[in-house]
């Protein structure tokens, strides 16, 4: 019984406070950001995320050829890419892995990332039974031919995501779902699994068979789960962890103090906080009402007074910094226009406007934002709103069943292309959750995705987004997320922040700095951190 109390294990080279406990080690099943950090150290795909800008850079594929119409990719795999068992990784392994990821029986929520492959969606939904019709074929052991439904400019980023990672065929064929419990754990990434104890830590060890093992410096890395922000900051501040890597692990009350520390780094992050309207419920069926509500919200106040983590207020859904895309401006803050619109809709000064509800889930700022919206809509428009908090599972259930009036929402993009945000509002998307169905929007998105010319494609996507944030407003954005991470730049190198919008990091890029200038961590500096800390890239 005392075994739980008397462990003696070597200290890991790097200890990361990773956020909520990971749900699975199966790259095709996981959805959480914390899960991805662990799993990306264990599994790799054709490409991996660059720490500098989140692009897909060569990994198991060392190079690729793209056909002129952008719909066929030939990937050339490294001949020295190997499993943790030492066996070579072949093109056939990728074909198997992608079929498995797409198979509905695998139950991966991220299978949609493979729908860009020819016949991917058809195979998933059972329209096509024969997996050999999937647009991924092994030409020989080290050549993979991928055919796409449409030219997909973000394919190389998709290839870096866990959903497209290569998984061990022999283990899965033999053990089915139980393959994740195998020890030693068969994997393809820079690290192998040492152990995973729930709510304690997942420890990974450098994989000697990894093709880039010579550039992988750290031998042992711990991923420590933590749900409580106060606990996390205590553990970090007393030196029991080296990196605190989840913004939710920073106590909101301390943000003003923490952000002045030299080891606190904030960066733009591919996520948007927005408000959904249930457009099937009166009076939100009227776009003038929705616009009025959006125009009456002072977003600047919300990011300055409530979130305070360096977030930027948003008028469009797609964050800035996307490849080849400049998002259109949506509605700003204009209470007079809001009042006029509300009057035109038949509710002068909010008269006869029914009392409605704001649905939100537990989260650091959600309640405060609800209260703020309540106050803004009451003072500017004379509307009465109640707040209703629901537990996570109830919240998402209500949201998808359209059991709400107005609802707190957010979306985290998977790759640096506007499509990852815009395709959630096509009519038949399970993520739409507003009741809004616009044939012209659907047509624009479909047209854009079939368009090989990048500039023309961007134009079409822009028109779609204008429909979303300027004309019809089934939603309106409040702010873009920012990420926050704590680590000492004097000790650690290779954690790319600004510019790495997707915020995906492979731990094998992290290195210990050789010459360490000790700077006391507990001292709160009154100045902004130095600009030349070597971590930030300014090319974005």
């Amino acid at each position, binding site marked *: *019984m005392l*075994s*739980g109390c008397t462990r003696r294990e070597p200290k890991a080279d790097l200890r990361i406070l990773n956020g909520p406990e990971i*749900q699975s080690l199966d790259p095709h099943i996981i959805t959480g950001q914390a899960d991805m950090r662990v799993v990306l150290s264990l599994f790799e795909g054709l490409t991996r995320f660059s720490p500098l800008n989140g692009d897909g850079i060569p990994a198991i594929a060392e190079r690729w050829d793209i056909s002129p119409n952008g719909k066929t990719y030939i990937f050339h795999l490294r001949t020295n890419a190997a499993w943790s068992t030492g066996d070579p990784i072949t093109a056939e392994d990728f074909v198997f892995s992608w079929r498995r990821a797409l198979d509905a029986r695998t139950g991966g*929520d991220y299978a949609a990332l493979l729908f860009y492959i020819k016949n991917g969606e058809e195979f998933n939904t059972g329209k096509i039974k024969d997996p050999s019709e999937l647009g991924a074929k092994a030409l020989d052991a080290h050549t993979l031919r991928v055919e796409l439904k449409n030219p997909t400019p973000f394919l190389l980023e998709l290839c870096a995501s866990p959903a497209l990672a290569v998984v061990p065929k022999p283990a899965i064929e033999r053990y089915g779902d139980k393959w994740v419990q195998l020890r030693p754990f068969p994997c393809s990434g820079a690290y192998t699994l040492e152990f995973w104890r729930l709510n304690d830590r997942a420890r990974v060890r450098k994989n000697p068979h990894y093709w880039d093992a010579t550039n992988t410096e750290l031998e042992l890395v711990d991923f420590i789960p933590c*749900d409580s922000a106060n606990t996390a900051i205590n553990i970090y*501040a007393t030196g029991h962890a080296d990196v605190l890597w989840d913004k939710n692990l920073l106590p909101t009350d301390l943000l003003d103090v923490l952000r002045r520390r030299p080891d606190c780094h904030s960066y733009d992050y591919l996520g948007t906080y927005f408000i959904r309207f249930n457009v099937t419920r009166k009076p939100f069926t009227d776009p003038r009402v929705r616009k009025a509500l959006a125009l009456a919200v002072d977003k600047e106040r919300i990011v300055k007074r409530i979130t305070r983590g360096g977030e930027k207020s948003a008028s469009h859904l797609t964050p800035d910094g996307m490849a080849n895309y400049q998002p259109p401006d949506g509605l700003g803050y204009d209470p007079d226009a809001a009042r006029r619109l509300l009057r035109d809709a038949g509710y002068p000064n909010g008269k006869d406007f029914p009392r409605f509800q704001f649905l939100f889930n537990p989260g650091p700022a959600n309640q405060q934002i609800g209260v703020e919206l309540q106050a803004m809509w009451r003072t500017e428009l004379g509307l009465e709103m109640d707040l209703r908090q629901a537990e*996570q*599972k*109830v919240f998402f259930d209500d949201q998808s069943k359209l059991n709400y009036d107005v609802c707190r929402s957010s979306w985290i993009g998977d790759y640096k292309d506007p499509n990852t945000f815009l395709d959630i509002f096509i009519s038949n998307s399970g993520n739409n959750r507003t009741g809004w169905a616009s044939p012209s929007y659907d047509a624009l998105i479909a047209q854009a995705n079939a368009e090989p010319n990048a500039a023309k494609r961007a134009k079409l996507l822009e028109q779609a987004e204008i429909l979303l944030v300027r004309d019809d407003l089934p939603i309106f954005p409040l702010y873009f997320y920012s990420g926050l991470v704590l680590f000492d730049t004097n000790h650690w190198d290779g954690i790319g922040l600004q510019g790495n919008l997707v915020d995906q990091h492979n731990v094998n890029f992290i290195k210990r700095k050789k010459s360490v200038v000790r700077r006391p961590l507990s001292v709160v500096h009154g100045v902004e951190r130095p600009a030349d800390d070597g971590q930030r890239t300014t090319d974005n």
Partner: protein
Amino acid sequence: MYFLKRILFMVPLVLLISFFAFGLLKLAPGGPFSQQRAPASEAIRKSIEAKYHLDEPWLKQYLRYLGLLWERDASGRLHRVSGGLIVGDLGPSFKYRDHSVNDIIAQALPVSLTLGAIAFVFAQCVGIPLGFYAAMRRGRWGDYFGSFIAILAVCIPPLVVGPVLIMIFSIRLGWFPPGLWGTPIYAVLPMIALGLFYSGKIARLMRESLLNTLQSEFITTARAKGLSESKIMAKHAFRLAVLPVVSYSGPLLADLLTGSFVVEAAFQIPGIGVFMVNSMLNLDQPMTVGLVLLYAILLLLLNLAVDFSYSLLDPRVRL
């Protein structure tokens, strides 16, 4: 014989508890797989539901959970479904998809047991002497002092004690780690945070009970017989006075052994208490039912142990 009967009686009781836990969770709003990101297709949602049999009527799901369901296989022969409560299999976790509920309990329970056991010993070792001392010094400064400490311990919940301990002994003094789990030094602060409240409670119980006992006739008789005060206390009064503490210890131990959400969360301890709360929030049904059953069985067994210890301590009780 008596104990055998009690143990046999536990079986229908556990079944009943499992039925209610299972049924109530089915009534809860929301779905275990409702989340921010919808499944990529309807086919995936269906396949997940089929995998966990969520597409069946709930009574059938319950029978499957118990393992009391027979299905025809491909060749048409009837087979009992594999696993089930009757063979001690608590099913898969919906949330931690690599793990079964049995796996998780096997990993987390030893940690909670360890922490609970040392907190229990701590509470007893502090509470009993403190209560004893206060009763002996009844109406004097020692009593006031002891009672004050006991009340203080009862009034400050672990929610406050934990962070205060961390602030003083970890952040300021650096004597103990502020959280995580490993060598024994990691267990010191959680032990105090968890045990302090109960030590106050035990001290108060002990004091009251000893004062009552000291007024009973057999103590007067013992005094009249000329026994020394220390012998009266140790041999006669204490044995009887400690009974309320013992009967309180049963449920207390069950409480402590199954982990505390507050303390485990505050110190990031990989115990069962965190799962108890989170599994409900996650609507991880098999996990919640499994933990409810675990708690129920522990409680029943410990109550039995309390009754047994009564027969040892109190000469008037014979089972």
